[in-house]
């Protein structure tokens, strides 16, 4: 039971707990805040995996942008801000049951995999160097195409979001 494991267990517990809270909280606002906590936990997990860059980017993108957007949406739709009633459909426990079964099945299936209990090797210094990642992203033999595609996707999402969200009523006069 090394320190790493302790940290992992804590982080995992926080993540899962807050995730469960996020999907079951009655007030959407709380759900959003729980989501933030869960995402922080994931960031910690990333840090444990020595992907510190992505830990920070996780905080930046998810907490700094996405969760704030979610909160924004919650604020903009007042019903979800004030709605106190049950936020889940009727047969939710069926889904829960089924998902638990699926989870157990998946884990069971995976546990037959020989590398199930693999241990991490030493990470070469270059692997944590962000310059390498950057070069990979813009390397024609690397990931240039997905990179460009995702950037175009982002642009399209930007335009689409603006177009969808803009209030047409303002443009009438």
């Amino acid at each position, binding site marked *: 039971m090394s320190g790493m494991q302790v940290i992992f267990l804590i982080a995992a517990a926080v993540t899962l707990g807050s995730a469960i809270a996020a999907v079951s909280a009655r*007030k959407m*606002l*709380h759900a959003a*805040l729980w989501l*933030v906590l869960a995402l922080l936990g994931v960031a910690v997990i990333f840090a444990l995996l020595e992907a*510190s*860059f992505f830990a*920070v*980017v996780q*905080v*930046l993108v998810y*907490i*700094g*942008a996405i*969760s*704030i*957007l979610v*909160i*924004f949406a919650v*604020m903009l739709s007042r019903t979800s801000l004030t709605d106190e009633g049950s936020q889940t459909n009727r047969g939710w426990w069926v889904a829960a049951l089924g998902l638990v079964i699926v989870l157990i099945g998946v884990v069971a299936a995976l546990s037959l995999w020989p590398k199930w209990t693999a241990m991490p090797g030493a990470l070469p210094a270059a692997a*944590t160097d*962000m*310059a390498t990642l950057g070069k990979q992203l813009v390397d024609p033999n690397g990931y240039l195409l997905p990179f460009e595609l995702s950037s175009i996707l982002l642009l399209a999402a930007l335009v689409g979001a603006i177009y969808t969200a803009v209030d047409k009523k303002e443009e009438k006069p």
Partner: protein
Amino acid sequence: MSFLADPVNFITQWLSTLLIGWGASASFTQLILYIIGAGALTLGALFFTVFLIWLERKIGGRFQDRLGPNRLGPWGIFQPIADMLKIFTKEYITPTGADKVPFNLAPILAVGGVLAMWAVIPYASTVFGVNFNIGVVYLIAVGAIGDLGIIMAGLGSNNKYALLSGFRAVANLISYEVPMVLVLLIPVLFSGSLGMNDIVKSQQTWNIFLAPLAALIFFTTSIAENGRAPFDLLEADSELVAGFNVEYSGLKFGMFYVADFLHSFTAALVFSTVFLGGWRGPGAETIPILGFVYLILKSSLVYFLILHIRFTIPRFRIDQMMDFNWKFLTPISLVLLMVTIVIDKLIPTDLTFIRISVHWAVNILIWVAADRILSAALKSHPAKVVARPRPLARPPHVAVDEKPGGEI
């Protein structure tokens, strides 16, 4: 190393030797030292804030032709301490229907987010919290956390002014982060690293000389990020009583207060680190304490600039703010980034003066072009009058003929 030259490392060394002498394990010693360092850093920051508050009030007094605090101590220097004591002793009021958890969590996040920024800033050639290889990204990220606190405050305290302030905080944050990150990439480009310390080390010529426009944009956006005038939409007293912190009292309010001042000084700190060469200065390599002094001097200068702007420029309207960001800052910073990348690739690094002059020329060119385009756009699309100005309040028996268009 001598104590005078580099006190921090001196103490660190001494402590570690001491602890190890007591038989503590190396990792434990490291842990202890980290804790002590963090505590010292945050406490120093907080106490520094006290001084900042006094300074700001004094300077604000000068700007507004007042005396400012002048009763307690010489030049009223103990005024903020008195305020602190008052705040400590005040009662905590939690409004009914408030959302307890966010309401109480918000001030902590606000201060914590700001303090977390101090962790990666190199104060001297040898003194820094952590030498994080992605410090810049980290800065942006924890800055987001600070604004998260504001949003939570706005949502938690069951108050429509606070909620509106929260809205504005979200809009503000989401918008102004974009050009900020974009222009922060330019120093990163020059130094070839995301680490703050490397950025400082690489500034033989301060980045502000290489990228004046980027510095300007970063300065503006950082003011907007920490909601200072003229971007203080989220605590616009005349519109929403005091914004997100209406419902707060006592130390909770005090924390917001501290966070505000600390945030703006942190912005100055970051600015001087990224663009003004941080601790760089004559003799700073050999005598780190000098570097610390330089850094404080530079950031005080920038902070004074921030104050100057705060006390002289009136507040924007929210739509003006959004337009200013999305229609001016973001495009110009995008163009600037692209052009700078290309130019810097073209010119060898050792021809310093040519490099500087070319960068200046290009920046000025971009600025002028943007200005031209903007003015042309304003000519072609003049701002349309949304509402007629309100009629003057007048006694019922006096007839004032009101021309169409509203002016009397």
